[in-house]
């Protein structure tokens, strides 16, 4: 067990930093601060799984949601699409999908690592206001974040090659792109015919040995699964072992934080959590960092309401939990005459970024990216349930024949789009449902903006054209519907210079509580084009640098 070889702090030790969450942001921050000489405790609600614990068990991972926390986690959330309705728990996947395990969702993600572009940070200025939304600029620019993107490339490990529309980079990719799959070749073929530009997908998966880690063995179990060889650049495989090796960082798994009490002088000096046995514990710290993801972070702040902070901790703006953004998606499938075997290797090897920028000529706000991937034809059960053509029979010998023919011959073209920030899309505390600890369930209220759906529809039309150009024997579009669950949990504690309209400042420090930092997907002001984790990690590197400087200055 990886937790045996690390420093242990007592609950009454006042450590320099306590970090809530060990995912894309928390893992990076823990490594940066502990290596810089500070004492750090990371509280993670999930167990400490390591590479040897990860399997190809589709029933356990996909259907029982074992990495998501299982049925107990699913029952701890409710969903509604409008605030006039009563939110209900989901019967299958939780509405806010995130991994509960050391390394967080960086363990189970597919590893698509697109940087944002310059425009992502300044779109409000470039395009003007959008009525009914809280569309805004970021307080930082691409240039300010670029050095930290480069650190993610090299220190976390990203494979790729520059594309024609990419923002400038100060260093090359540390590794070449992953080998192109048949789905990528077909996307390239189609893009050329249509005058578009397919480019190698940047991915957080090692194409070569890097930083003492072995490269990908192309097993195919990326999306939703943990990597059994550590080639996927999760914080579990990269940052967390280095944090532990510093001798100053304790990763404490099975620790569910439920309250951040405020002291008489207005600071947060300890966090309260349930340990593995369900016993209440506390950890004292000089500074508290919330990196619990864009759903859990606002939930915890709202749950920590007190006389001094009646609307929730750090919530004088009223923006805690607001402006939730999932990124919208489109999906089309195609069947080809020869075998792609797209169940092998990573999900995505080629992407198209010709439609990245918002274009007023389209008649709506939004931009997005297109990628080629197996999606459902990466794993057999999901494929048999959700991947077959709409005209296929649901059972019988013809169904069986099609399963056998299509599994190795199918691919998907996925579109990922912007989401507009809206007050109506948010995280609140459910008034009736409780989780297993008796805490109010995490309530999501969400309905995609019409422009987000329009952009997804635009990408769906392009996807169908791409299948035609690629020579697909059959292709079909999945109906475009408002989303009822999201794995990208963005915007719910946005950063900004104005304390009236943001929760944290440009360095992720709470406007209201001076020793509280918040850094994860909740910090986002806009959603990007559907691959947020690279930016979460870059923000975390940058935030940690500032936290260290501020701590040294006292």
């Amino acid at each position, binding site marked *: 067990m990886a937790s045996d070889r690390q420093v242990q702090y007592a609950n009454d030790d006042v450590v320099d930093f306590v970090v809530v969450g060990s995912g894309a942001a928390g893992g990076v921050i823990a490594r940066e601060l502990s290596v810089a000489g500070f004492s750090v405790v990371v509280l993670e609600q999930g167990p400490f799984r390591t590479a040897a614990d990860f399997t190809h068990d589709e029933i356990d991972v996909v259907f029982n949601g074992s990495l998501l926390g299982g049925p107990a986690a699913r029952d701890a959330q409710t969903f509604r699409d409008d605030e006039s309705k009563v939110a209900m728990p989901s019967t299958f996947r939780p509405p806010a999908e995130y991994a509960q395990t050391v390394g967080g969702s960086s363990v189970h993600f597919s590893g698509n690592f697109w940087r944002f572009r310059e425009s992502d940070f300044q779109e409000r200025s470039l395009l003007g206001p959008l009525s009914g939304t809280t569309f805004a600029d970021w307080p930082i620019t691409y240039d300010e974040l670029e050095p930290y993107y480069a650190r993610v490339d090299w220190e976390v490990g990203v494979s790729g090659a520059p594309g024609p529309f990419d923002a400038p980079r100060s260093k090359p990719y540390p590794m070449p792109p992953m080998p*192109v799959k048949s789905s990528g070749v077909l996307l390239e073929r189609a893009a050329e015919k249509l005058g578009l530009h397919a480019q190698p997908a940047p991915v957080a998966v090692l194409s070569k040995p890097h930083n003492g880690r072995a490269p990908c063995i192309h097993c195919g179990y990326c999306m939703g699964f943990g990597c059994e060889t550590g080639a996927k650049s999760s914080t579990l495989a990269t940052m967390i072992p280095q944090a532990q090796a510093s001798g100053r960082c304790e990763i404490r798994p099975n620790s569910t934080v439920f309250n951040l009490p405020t002291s008489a002088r207005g600071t947060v000096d300890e966090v309260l959590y349930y340990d593995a046995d369900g016993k209440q514990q506390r950890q004292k710290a000089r500074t508290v960092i919330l990196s619990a993801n864009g759903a859990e972070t606002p939930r915890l702040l709202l749950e920590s309401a007190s006389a001094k902070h009646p609307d929730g901790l750090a919530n004088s703006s009223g923006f805690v939990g607001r402006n939730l953004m999932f990124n919208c998606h489109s999906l089309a499938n195609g069947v080809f005459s020869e075998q792609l075997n797209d169940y092998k290797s990573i999900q995505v090897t080629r992407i198209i970024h010709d439609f990245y920028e918002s274009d007023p000529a389209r008649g709506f706000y939004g931009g997005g990216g297109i990628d080629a991937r197996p999606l459902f034809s990466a794993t057999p059960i999901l494929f048999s349930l959700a991947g077959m053509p709409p005209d296929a029979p649901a059972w019988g010998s013809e169904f069986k024949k099609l399963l056998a023919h299509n599994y190795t011959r199918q691919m998907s073209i996925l579109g990922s789009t912007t989401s507009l920030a809206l007050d109506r899309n948010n995280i609140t505390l459910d008034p009736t449902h409780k989780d297993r600890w008796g805490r109010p369930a995490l309530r999501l209220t969400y309905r995609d903006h019409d422009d987000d759906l329009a952009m997804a529809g635009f990408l769906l039309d392009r996807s169908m054209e791409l299948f035609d150009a690629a020579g697909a024997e059959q292709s079909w579009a999945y109906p475009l519907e408002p989303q009822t669950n999201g794995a990208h949990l963005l915007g719910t504690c946005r950063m900004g210079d104005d304390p009236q309209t943001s929760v944290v400042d440009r360095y992720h420090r709470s406007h209201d509580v001076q020793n509280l930092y918040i850094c994860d997907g909740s910090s986002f002001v806009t959603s990007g084009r559907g691959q947020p984790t690279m930016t979460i990690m870059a923000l975390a590197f940058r935030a940690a640098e500032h936290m260290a400087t501020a701590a040294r200055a006292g």
Partner: protein
Amino acid sequence: MDGSRREFLRGSGVLAGASALRFGIPGLAALSQAACSARDAGAAFETLSAGEARELDAMAARILPSTGTPGAHDAGVIWFIDKSLGGFLAPQKDFLLGGLADFQAPVAAAFPGATQFSDLDEADQDRYLRTQDTTPFFGFVRFMTLAGMFGMASYGGNRDSAGWQLLGVDPHQHAFLPPFGHYDAAAASGDNHGE
């Protein structure tokens, strides 16, 4: 062999023996050999009665029939169903058995001489299923059939990796090198994107 197991096997032929040895992973083969031996030598159903098992096995066998390749019956999907209803699908057991009773009830009137679905010949089974294949009960049996066919054998189905072999996947290779498929192989050899 105990009574319920014998009754289930009646008329269905002998279940395929363990053949994992063919695939050449000694540890795995020994494990599945042991598991199959225990199972075939007299394990009873854990959660289903023999009669329930016969009906569900017959349904699964029409959802994924035995054709030139093994179907759900050959892959032991019924053992997956039985085991899962005592495990991760236990919360759905009452729904399933209630649905099964409703599913069986009209059979006798529609097919003189038959008392249950598994009494019918395959053509009549298909005929009857077409009248039932939009119910939530059928949907759940279909889900279990697919999960049992394509899930890991440790859940009781996918015997001899029949499900994975059906899809064209080598069941014992979990690492690959490029080229992965036809189009990337053709592109790598200088062909224009496989055209």
